[in-house]
């Protein structure tokens, strides 16, 4: 129990806790040549800040926009090499070199168990996908259930063994040492799951994790509406989610269809998605069935 009078002097708490954590103020070099640098903080802050001493990890300004542009470029290259329109399958192929994993698979559908395997990059990935369906346990099933990623950077460690007593050893036998599962979700909307594996243990770096999340976001949008170029979601806006919820009532459809209709309305009428969403939330605009058709 942390007593309030001790907690107030949080410097004490920091000292007490410091020994339990590994110091990590060394400069870090992320994959892809980007540098995530540490920097000595010299400003005279308050007592708490001085007590901390260690340099803050300053995230090099890799913005979401830059990251998304780069990831979309890699996906488009795959599609061009294949000679087809951009599809979720291209995400699967592009993510492997993109975040330096050994292989990937993608299944589409409401959940991993009911979904169908759309794409695998190699035989190990196929076995990993099959194993989870046969065994009924594994990172992708958990990711699909929680709506968040499941990152098992070492299938041989105790955590993974306890979590998936049957899947973990079977996956190791199949040739995987680490599995990373990304649910293809937008809130309550579920479009599928993206699985990545490595033949050596080790976590995704922060940089790779950020990229992997954007690959997964892109796959989600491609699965949901299959536009050649996913409509720009831009910076995160709560209004888009709120408007989607409102449309379930206005159109009497489920949340997935409401999202597709919202995006279709913006796309067909050539209006920014955020602007359409804002008008709907402010009740300046209501959609009725077929109202995504252009005026006239």
């Amino acid at each position, binding site marked *: 129990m942390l007593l309030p009078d001790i907690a107030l002097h949080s410097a004490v708490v920091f000292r007490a806790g410091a020994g339990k954590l590994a110091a990590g103020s060394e400069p870090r070099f992320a994959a892809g040549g980007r540098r995530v640098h540490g920097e000595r903080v010299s400003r005279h802050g308050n007592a708490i*800040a001085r007590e901390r001493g260690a340099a803050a990890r300053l*995230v090099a300004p890799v913005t979401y926009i830059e990251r998304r542009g780069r990831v979309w470029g890699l996906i488009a290259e795959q599609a061009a090499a294949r000679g087809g329109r951009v599809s979720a399958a291209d995400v699967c192929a592009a993510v492997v070199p993109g975040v330096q994993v050994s292989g990937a698979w993608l299944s589409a559908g409401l959940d991993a168990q009911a979904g169908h395997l759309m794409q695998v990059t190699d035989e190990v990935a196929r076995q990993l996908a099959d194993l989870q369906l046969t065994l009924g346990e594994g990172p992708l099933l958990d990711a699909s259930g*929680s709506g968040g990623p499941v990152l098992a950077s070492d299938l041989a460690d105790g955590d993974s063994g306890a979590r998936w007593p049957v899947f973990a050893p079977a996956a190791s036998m199949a040739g995987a040492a680490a599995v990373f599962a990304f649910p293809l979700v937008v809130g309550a909307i579920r479009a599928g799951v993206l699985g990545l594996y490595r033949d050596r243990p080790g976590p995704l770096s922060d940089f790779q994790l950020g990229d992997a999340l954007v690959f997964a976001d892109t796959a989600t949008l491609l699965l949901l509406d299959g536009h050649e170029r996913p409509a720009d979601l831009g*910076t995160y806006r709560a209004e888009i989610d*709120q408007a989607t919820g409102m449309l379930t009532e206005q159109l009497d459809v489920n949340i997935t269809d409401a999202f597709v209709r919202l995006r279709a309305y913006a796309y067909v009428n050539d209006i920014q998605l955020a602007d359409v969403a804002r008008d709907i939330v402010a*009740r300046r605009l209501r959609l009725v069935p077929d109202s995504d058709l252009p005026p006239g």
Partner: protein
Amino acid sequence: MDGQLLSATFVELTDTMVADFDLIDFLHVLTTRSVELLDVSAAGLLLADPRGELRVVATSSEAARVLELFQLQSDQGPCLDCFRSGQPVGSADLNADPRWPQFAQQAGEVGFSAVQALPMRLRDQVIGALNLFRGTVGAFDPEVVQIGQALADVATISLLHDRSMRRTDTLNEQLQTALNSRVVIEQAKGKLAERLGVDVNQAFTLLRDQARNRNQRLSDLARAFVDGTQVISASSGSPRTSRPGRVGQP
């Protein structure tokens, strides 16, 4: 300063070991207690998304304009500067502050004159920032800043020292799950607002109250409501039945 509430809050913020621990509920407590204890107008919490954005996870007010003001700081504002430097960043008079013109203007429109951002930081790891707003011009009382920082510190330590969170993987899993839960909550707010003809802020209050009454996590109730497996009625709050707004039919 309410000493008893402060003590109770510190206990609350160390209570991450419970079986049904929910990151969103936990951070929501941090923002509402910040408002109650620190005599500020609004508090919000932004967490770092590995995609490269700061994302709002919990706020003391769910009013659309306030939410927007918090989220705007993914682009510019004291939270972004605080997150990048790992140091507290504040402004005693936003109107006279040239650092974040768009942010200052929007803050003024909502009625906020002064701001303080406090890092959620443990040693070299900055996971987000706690953001406090006040309606009156003037520097924040040093005691307010110190206690606000202590609240943020205890919350950060509780999260990072939680046995299950010690793996970086687990922390990232939890943060992403929380961000997606936040999206589910927004979707539920919209659905409920439309169904009952209330605004999204009232819809949030209803959702939160009913989650408490049912002893359910907010994100679980929100998901069940969006999926259609649980119904929420207008038993608390004062919904209107009218549905204003024109029909967007071509």
